[in-house]
């Protein structure tokens, strides 16, 4: 009935009274009906009935006192709420009454929901949470690629100017590139992570500074710098290196020995570019304009692809539309500038760009944790099914007393909700420590991962998981309830085990479901484990143990000679330190992600620039190969005599030798990598040695052709990695190196001090993380599924002990019984296995990008999973099967 507003005047006070003055209403109801009964009794007595008969007749006229009371309560229209409270209280009481069941169930759900909550909070932080900028959905990453390979590369400043002029899809475009700076004049020199940006980056991101201002437009103009360059600090840098100086704006600082003026401080929440390392200072790209004094400015060269670009889309322009336009612009630029390398273009939402390569892994983990929860649910559902059987009598009595089916179902669901929310509470506690655990395990290079925490969205997710759980759990008992026949149940409910065929079918289905989910997780974990072990057994090409490396931040104003002297003196000093067997320096340390690409010409063929092949360029000091134990296959190492005055030389790796000097001796032949440092044009170099290839770009990539040139013939490359082999602890070596470096020049900070084993372990951090988590999930799920199978078989054995007794009495062999029960378990497991294997194939295809060296249909993994599951199933059904054979026929028959 629809209420009219004026009626609410009457009804609302009634409802409130019904809810909050419940006891008074109950008393009044009782009084009213008692009064009625007394009067009616008197009426009958006046008509000549005895007091007892009169009272009975009066009661009979009411046709069920309690039923009528309940109807009056229902009339109050708040019984839904009231019943909920009542059911809730009752549910809690039921759980308290069977603490073993309650603890098991709540812990199992706590684990299941907790795993989901923890993983979801990571997914939320990395994939879902909006970027911390106004209108973050408008931010897009413009990624310039090498057209031939599709590999992402940078863009050049002239490219950027053309894009900005021509593109119409964006409100603005900005460029940036990351770079370290040595900050001096503030106590010990430190190296800060910095970014050089175009002036429009800050307006584009639209986060206001907490002090001072953004860059002025003219401050990023090459040449316009004139006086001091400007710099903006992060909140952290302001606090840590400037003691939160309130007068910071306008102060002068020295970055790489050049003068800068601080014009602003960004708030603590601001980070750009978002990455594993926090950026502490921002300067303008104008800094690059005067890099390499005397040479052409970096900003003027279209062929120097080193910048990244971010843009803010116009409202209502899609990423796809922007990409179409940008591709058109880039291909037109390719036509106009044929000598600067053909470029391609990808546009992606900034958030997707950031989460790019971790998305699949995270989704697989989220799915896996979902499977764990499903298995836990299925397992609990079987438990509840048994309880429901035990409670048939209770339900039947409730039903006989007038509880409708909806009312019974509501009660069961509320009981499950109690369970699920108790589980969710445990889950939140577990998830809180779980997240800490995840963050410690997780690879450091996943952007925004460290911000994973329980926020409102995660809470919402957890509640949704709890409600889903309650419904999933409720399904089985409710289905059973709907078949409840009151009289049957009251009659034979006492035995509590007249479950029909439908019941055991449901139970079997639950077991099969658990088994198949466990199989899927096992397959996923197995494939990842295989990948990891293949990754770890990749031959690095060098010995990573006992190697320590660090970089020195060279001041920009160091002359080539100064730089050379600094490195050589530091190396010599370290080499003579006790416990150090050899020391050298290199630009591109393997696995450090610090590689330069270069195009080259061989054998004076004068291949046009655009068609030249490319290789990794590495710059090394003598004894580098010896230090890393990279075998020198032919020829000689660099020596101190390989200087700018001497013959230009190069050493190549055998990958390059195989590819470009097949079947011939490369020693004495010529190679000309396109790098001119120290020369007017790229010199033609004589190949003096061939070394074994190493996994310089990580474990997944096969070794590329690589050409090494001596540092003395390729000066001014920025910071080199000093690397040394030592038996001592890395910490003491690094402390010694710091004091030696300070003795040479106390303004040069050392940074990136790490062992090569640390680089190695970082390069497998992601797969290791995935294996660990998925493995844990798989293990958990197998255990839970095995318990489920054990429970189902035990239950069926208990149900059929009578039948077993008869069989034995009729002469069946105990072996037959054993075989029969085992067969039942194996059949359930087998069905689960089949479904699981099929689903596993689909999963494996989805996660194929995570795999290494193993096919998504790897028969070995699938077979191993099948065997493992068969063993577990046999074990889980063996014990109940043995119990079945020990049934005493006489006992079983008597107890029927």
């Amino acid at each position: 009935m629809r209420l009219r507003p004026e009626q609410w005047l009457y009804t609302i006070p009634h409802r409130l009274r019904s809810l909050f003055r419940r006891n008074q209403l109950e008393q009044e109801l009782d009084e009213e009906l008692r009064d009625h009964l007394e009067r009616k009794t008197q009426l009958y007595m006046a008509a000549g009935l005895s007091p007892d008969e009169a009272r009975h007749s009066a009661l009979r006229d009411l046709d069920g006192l309690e039923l009528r009371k309940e109807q009056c309560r229902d009339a109050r229209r708040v019984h839904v709420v009231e019943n909920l409270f009542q059911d809730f209280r009752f549910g809690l009481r039921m759980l308290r009454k069977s603490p073993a069941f309650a603890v098991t169930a709540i812990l199992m759900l706590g684990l299941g929901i907790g795993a989901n909550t923890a993983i979801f909070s990571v997914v939320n932080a990395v994939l879902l949470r909006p970027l911390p900028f106004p209108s973050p959905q408008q931010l897009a990453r413009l990624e310039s690629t090498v057209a031939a390979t599709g590999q992402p590369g940078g863009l050049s400043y002239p490219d950027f100017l053309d894009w900005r002029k021509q593109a119409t899809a964006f409100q603005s475009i900005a460029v940036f590139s990351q770079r370290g700076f040595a900050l001096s004049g503030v106590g010990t020199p430190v190296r800060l992570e910095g970014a050089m940006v175009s002036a429009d980056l800050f307006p584009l991101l639209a986060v206001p500074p907490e002090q001072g201002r953004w860059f002025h437009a003219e401050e990023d103009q090459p040449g316009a710098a004139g006086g001091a360059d400007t710099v903006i600090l992060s909140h952290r840098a302001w606090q840590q290196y400037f003691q939160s100086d309130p007068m910071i704006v306008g102060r002068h600082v020295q970055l790489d020995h050049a003068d800068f003026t601080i014009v602003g401080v960004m708030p603590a929440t601001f980070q750009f570019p978002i990455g594993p390392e926090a950026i502490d200072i921002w300067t303008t790209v104008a800094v690059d304009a005067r890099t390499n004094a005397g040479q052409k400015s970096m900003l003027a060269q279209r062929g120097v692809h080193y910048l990244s670009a971010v843009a803010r889309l116009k409202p209502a322009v899609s990423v796809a539309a922007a990409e179409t336009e940008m591709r058109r612009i880039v291909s037109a630029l390719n036509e106009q500038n044929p000598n600067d390398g053909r470029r391609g273009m990808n546009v992606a939402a900034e958030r997707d760009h950031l989460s790019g390569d971790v998305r699949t892994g995270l989704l697989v983990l989220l799915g896996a944790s979902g499977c764990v929860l499903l298995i836990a649910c299925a397992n609990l559902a079987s438990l509840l099914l048994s309880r429901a059987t035990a409670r048939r009598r209770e339900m039947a009595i409730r039903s006989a007393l007038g509880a409708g089916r909806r009312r019974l179902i509501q009660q069961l669901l509320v009981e499950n909700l109690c369970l699920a929310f108790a589980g969710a509470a445990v889950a939140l506690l577990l998830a809180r420590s779980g997240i800490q655990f995840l963050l410690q395990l997780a690879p450091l290079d996943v952007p925004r991962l460290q911000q994973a925490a329980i926020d409102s969205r995660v809470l919402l997710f957890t509640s949704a998981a709890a409600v889903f759980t309650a419904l999933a759990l409720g399904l089985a008992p409710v289905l059973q309830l709907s078949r409840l026949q009151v009289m049957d149940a009251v009659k034979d409910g006492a035995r509590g085990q007249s479950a029909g065929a439908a019941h055991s079918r449901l139970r079997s289905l639950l077991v099969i479901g658990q088994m198949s989910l466990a199989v899927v997780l096992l397959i996923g974990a197995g494939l990842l484990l295989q990948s990891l072990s293949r990754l770890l057994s990749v031959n690095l090409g060098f010995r990573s143990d006992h190697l320590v490396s660090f970089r020195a931040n060279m001041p920009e104003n160091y002359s080539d000679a100064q730089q050379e002297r600094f490195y050589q003196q530091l190396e010599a000093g370290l080499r003579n330190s006790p416990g150090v067997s050899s020391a050298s320096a290199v630009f591109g340390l393997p696995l450090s992600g610090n590689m330069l690409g270069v195009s080259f010409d061989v054998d004076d063929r004068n291949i046009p620039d655009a068609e030249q092949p490319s290789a990794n360029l590495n710059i090394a000091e003598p004894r580098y190969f010896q230090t890393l134990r990279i075998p020198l296959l032919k020829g000689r190492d660099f020596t101190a005599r390989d200087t700018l005055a001497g013959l230009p030389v190069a050493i190549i790796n055998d990958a390059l030798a195989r590819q470009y000097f097949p079947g011939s001796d490369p020693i004495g032949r010529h190679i000309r990598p396109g790098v001119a440092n120290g020369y007017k044009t790229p010199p033609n170099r004589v190949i003096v040695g061939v070394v074994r290839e190493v996994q310089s770009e990580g474990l997944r990539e096969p070794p590329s052709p690589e050409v090494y040139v001596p540092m003395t013939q390729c000066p001014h490359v920025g910071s080199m990695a000093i690397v040394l082999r030592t038996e001592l602890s890395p910490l003491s070596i690094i402390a010694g190196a710091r004091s030696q470096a300070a003795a040479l020049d106390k303004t040069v900070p050392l940074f990136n001090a790490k062992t090569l084993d640390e680089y190695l372990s970082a390069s497998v951090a992601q797969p290791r993380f995935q294996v660990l988590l998925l493995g844990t999930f798989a293990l958990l799920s197998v255990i839970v599924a095995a318990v489920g199978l054990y429970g189902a078989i035990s239950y069926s054995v208990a149900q059929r002990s009578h039948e077993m007794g008869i069989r034995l009495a009729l002469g069946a062999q105990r072996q037959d019984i054993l075989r029969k029960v085992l067969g039942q378990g194996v059949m359930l497991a087998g069905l689960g296995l089949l479904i699981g294997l099929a689903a596993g194939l689909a999963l494996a295809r989805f996660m194929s990008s995570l795999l290494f060296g193993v096919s998504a249909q790897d028969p070995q993994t699938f077979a191993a999973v099948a065997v493992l599951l068969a063993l577990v199933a046999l074990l889980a059904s063996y014990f109940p099967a043995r119990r079945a054979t020990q049934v005493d026929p006489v006992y079983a028959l008597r107890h029927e």
Partner: protein
Amino acid sequence: MSKPSDLVQGTLDLLLLKILALEPLNGFAISIRLKQVSREILQVSDGSLYPALHKLEQEGWIKAEWRPSENNRRAKFYSLTRLGRRQLNLEAANWNRLSAAISHVIKLEEV
């Protein structure tokens, strides 16, 4: 048998409203009065009376108050509200229309 289902749906509400329109009564008196005024034809069971009264109260059509009754005990007396009177008029009109239509149909000559 005089189960509520024997009464046309909603008729019990109409009867109760009408009786209470005459004077405020308690539950027991209502059950007696119902029998009297319908000349023993309409028998409303005691059982269905109270839920119906509570429902009308919740709708805001009748209100209840505790008063001393004739035997000097506290009893719950129901009386009609302003809203209840309007409802009574509405339902009475409906009833008249309905019963007139049904009588008309019943009186049709059979061929």
